[in-house]
């Protein structure tokens, strides 16, 4: 065939073009797939802290062990679900006597209630970011809670990271954290501010 070489060249060109078209685009921020996004916390780069009042003066503590998953169908958390589980027994206020007291039966009662959980089935967009509405369970007591937060995605060398931050006020007596003498609030304030700064990474479902 006189056109054999031309045909082969065209075929090769077409084949190359088809291959290039089918290849994934150069890595920028990968868009959410049709199945949605699933983010999981990166514990090493995340913190969950709480601020409380002791004898009239502010003090802080942290929960070093916790898990967070954030799932959303679209391009941002709106319409998604948030699950947070906290290992309460690992709490750390920097003082062993105080930590032991906090874990005791009249306060967090960690032997009976080792885990605290926030489960939000509804996330909406707000003027300042997002708000997760759901159920907060502490010391076995479940109550409705709304937690505002900010969220932004960032491409970090082939990995999609999500940065989440926010804070919420929890009244410990609402959850029974404070029985017996610890119902009094002059030495251990009722209002506790829980704040979080999280790095999450996008994972496969």
């Amino acid at each position: 065939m006189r056109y054999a070489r031309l045909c082969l060249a065209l075929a090769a060109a077409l084949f190359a073009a088809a291959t290039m078209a089918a290849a994934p685009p150069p890595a920028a921020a990968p868009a959410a797939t049709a199945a949605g996004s699933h983010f999981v916390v990166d514990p090493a780069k995340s913190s969950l802290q709480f601020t409380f009042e002791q004898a009239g003066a502010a003090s802080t503590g942290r929960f070093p062990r916790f898990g967070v998953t954030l799932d959303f169908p679209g391009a941002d958390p709106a319409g998604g679900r948030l699950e947070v589980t906290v290992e309460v027994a690992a709490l750390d206020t920097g003082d062993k006597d105080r930590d032991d007291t906090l874990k005791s039966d009249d306060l967090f009662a960690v032997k009976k209630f080792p885990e605290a959980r926030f489960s939000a089935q509804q996330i909406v967009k707000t003027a300042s970011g997002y708000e997760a509405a759901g159920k907060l369970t502490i010391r076995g007591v479940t109550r409705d809670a709304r937690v505002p937060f900010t969220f932004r995605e960032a491409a970090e060398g082939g990995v999609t990271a999500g940065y989440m931050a926010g804070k919420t006020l929890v009244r410990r007596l609402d959850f029974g954290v404070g029985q017996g003498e610890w119902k009094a609030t002059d030495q251990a304030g009722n209002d506790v501010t829980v704040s979080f700064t999280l790095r999450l990474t996008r994972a496969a479902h």
Partner: protein
Amino acid sequence: MALRNTTRRWGVIAQTFHWVIVALLIVQVTLAEMADDLPLGVRKLSLLARHKSVGITILVLVILRLAWRSANVNPPLPDNLKPYERKAARFTHVALYVLLAAMPLSGWMMSSARGFPVSWFGFFTLPDLVPKNRALYDWLMMTHHTLAWVLFAVIALHVAGALKHHFVHKDDVLKRMLPFTHH
């Protein structure tokens, strides 16, 4: 009743400083003793919170009292004291001022070293004097307790001296610090 001191008598303000601090010291010791016997809990924290607040109050009163003293003429020691009595008097007075300041300061530092900021009766929080450090806390705890004993010893000397002036020398050294006595 004169507000200010004269060379013969302490004024009402000086007397008030003196006896209010005496009363607060009694409160302090009581609060500390009560708290010491308790296990860690709300009651103990409550007593210690009050102990700290009263302690800071004493510190402020001592500073004001020293300022008032320097702005006033002060009744001198009697002329007829022997040199050792004169030295003992000066020593106990200086020691009292030093200890009355050292006690609340060491307590405040102790609380800072423990990482428990001091609140004055819940109205405001004092800055931490030292960084959080358990070893420092232990040392300051021991210092605070030891200084308390030294303070009790100096107070005992002070009271003994006052009583000696009153009953042995029969002079007006005690009377001039007592309200409602005129001479």
